[in-house]
């Protein structure tokens, strides 16, 4: 029975199909990229993309390059800084808006007016305002996650079933108890969701901010994966562009996976019934 189960887990049909699909995708990409040298004509679009084998070779070469790892480090640092700043400011703000009607009436409309402005549109203003490049990137990153987190916290806290409050009060909870033992845990799932989405946006923003500020010609950037990509583009090493893209993909994937793990640890009652 156990062997059967193991075999099922290893060779189930959907995993096999996933492997086949990704393999076919890579082969098509390889053929498309090499079409010029193999068939004499370039397949449109893919013909200009470096082949996967070339990318792997370039990546292998980069593994020993401290500059590459420095880029990882810089981007991660910026993401973390912006993300945590957004959590620290956004969660209390969202909770307070949900709890206090007057404050909500005062702040929410202004918040809604600023929200549709894409975070990247803040880049130049941010560069003018903040004394260093580093701070301006961090600020834009912060903005990216901030709006999402606030909206999720607010929505989560507002949709708490009023019966929870009633039952908490009938059991003699004080205002503070209600906040700490009802509002906070009941909002936690929305906080987790908001942070996961916010984390995704943070990576998007970091990459773009690095490209715009670092690659945009103003110089003096401290690197980062976005800068790495832009630099590879300017320097003509196209394989490295793809390496950079995949690296960011991996970094984003790892951070959202970690966040998901943390989230499920913090909200054990939402795990499988």
């Amino acid at each position: 029975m156990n062997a059967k189960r193991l075999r099922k887990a290893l060779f189930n049909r959907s995993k096999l199909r996933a492997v086949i699909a990704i393999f076919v995708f890579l082969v098509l990409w390889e053929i498309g990229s090499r079409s010029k040298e193999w068939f004499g004509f370039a397949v449109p679009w893919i013909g200009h993309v470096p082949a996967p084998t070339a990318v792997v070779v370039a990546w292998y070469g980069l593994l020993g390059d401290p500059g590459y790892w420095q880029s990882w480090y810089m981007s991660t640092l910026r993401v973390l800084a912006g993300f945590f700043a957004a959590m620290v400011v956004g969660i209390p703000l969202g909770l307070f808006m949900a709890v206090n009607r007057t404050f909500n009436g005062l702040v929410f409309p202004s918040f809604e007016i600023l929200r549709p402005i894409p975070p990247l549109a803040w880049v130049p203003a941010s560069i003018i305002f903040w004394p260093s490049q580093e701070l301006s990137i961090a600020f834009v990153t912060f903005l990216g996650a901030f709006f999402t987190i606030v909206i999720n916290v607010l929505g989560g806290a507002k949709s708490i079933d009023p019966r929870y409050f009633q039952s908490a009060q009938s059991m003699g909870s004080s205002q503070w108890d209600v906040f700490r033992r009802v509002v906070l845990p009941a909002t936690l799932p929305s906080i987790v969701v908001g942070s996961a989405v916010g984390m995704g946006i943070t990576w998007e923003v970091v990459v773009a901010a690095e490209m715009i500020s670092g690659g945009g010609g103003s110089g003096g950037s401290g690197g980062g994966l976005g800068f790495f990509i832009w630099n590879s583009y300017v320097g003509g090493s196209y394989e490295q562009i793809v390496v950079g893209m995949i690296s960011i993909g991996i970094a984003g994937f790892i951070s959202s996976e970690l966040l998901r793990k943390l989230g499920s640890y913090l909200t054990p009652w939402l795990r499988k019934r």
Partner: protein
Amino acid sequence: MDQNQTVALLKRSMPFQTVPSDMLDAIAKLARYESYARGDVIYHQGDFADDVYIVSSGTVQHTLGIGFQATHPEKILHSGDVFGWAAVLDNQRSRLAKTVCMERTELIRINGEELINLFRASPETGDIVMSRFATMINKEYTMPEEVAGHVPHFTQVPVTMATGLTLTMFRLSQWLKSPKPYLMFTGFGILLATWYFTVEVWKLPRFVDMPGLTVVMKEWFSKDPVYGLSIYTPEYYQHIWVSVRRILIAFFLATVLGVPLGLFLGWSKTFREYVFPVFETLRPIPILAWVPLAILMFQGSETPVIYLTFLASFYATALNTMLGVETIDESYSRAAACLGASKWQTFKEVIVPGAMPFMFTGLQISIGVAWFSLVAGEMVSGEFGLGYVINTSYTMVRYPTIVIGMITLGIVGYTSSALVRMAGDYMMQWRVRELALGGR
């Protein structure tokens, strides 16, 4: 409760809102004050309908009897709400509903007969009040129009149902009486004042370099802008149009390709097992990391920007549509199979409409991320467009124009999201009505 308070209460109610004040005084004289304790029944269904009631304070539960075809028989009434309207209908002399006080409740009651007699003296006002009654019965109490049409009329002109506009105006006036708009404008005031004082009055360090409120406004509305961009210059609209055009193309492509892909991903397990892994492998790569590759792949400056915008929208649309299909309760497809629907009919009649709510959530996200990546694309490469304006204004040190670009982006972005939302509401009437009734 004195005469003035009664008049004030009448003025807050939907039917009497527009009545001239001498008439209101006369109506107020008919009113009697009453108070009830929690759990008291004001009247039962079938009781003789004599008086019309207006809630002054407290809450009343109003339950229309089965068989009166109200689409939503239950309603909770608060201060200013009018009930007991059966007393003014010309074909009804018994109560259609049961009303129970849910807490200590104060209200005024006005005899229907006396009220109608009063209006005979001024038929025009009477007709307006009655048509507002009819609108209220139809729209707020969800009763069929033929029931609501039985209000009396006093002139030769038959009563027409007050338009939806009347109701909207009434709600607007209610809103203006709540603290909400004042808080909102205070909030805006604080935001703008902060901007103005920190930059232009106190000239705080760091803030002083920023474009100030008055500078930006003067520039934006100037016929002869210092930096060449204001609402009077054609370039301004050209930039907006270029951005909007890119969004339109990208959003259209993303919808046309993303929706069917999402539907099939959700519908066919085999298709999903082959295609989804590739989709999932590419998805963690931020859209903006594609910028240089997009420039390589699509020569020129226009196509790469559109491609980036498309890609972001496409993921959002396809993924949400797929989720939408997955969340459809299995019993719907089973019911369709029972009723003799073929596989294709099931797809058309069940899968597509069932995925609609998520699909439109997807499209809303899609339009949002489209603007997000459009700006990035335009800032890095591309000519014209609002992102381009913001970036070049920075490099050319035209700081006020940066803010003009940002504000314009906000407005255009917000408008496009609102349009998508409206399209969604229009296509999903069933859902809007369901939600309006309190999400059962």
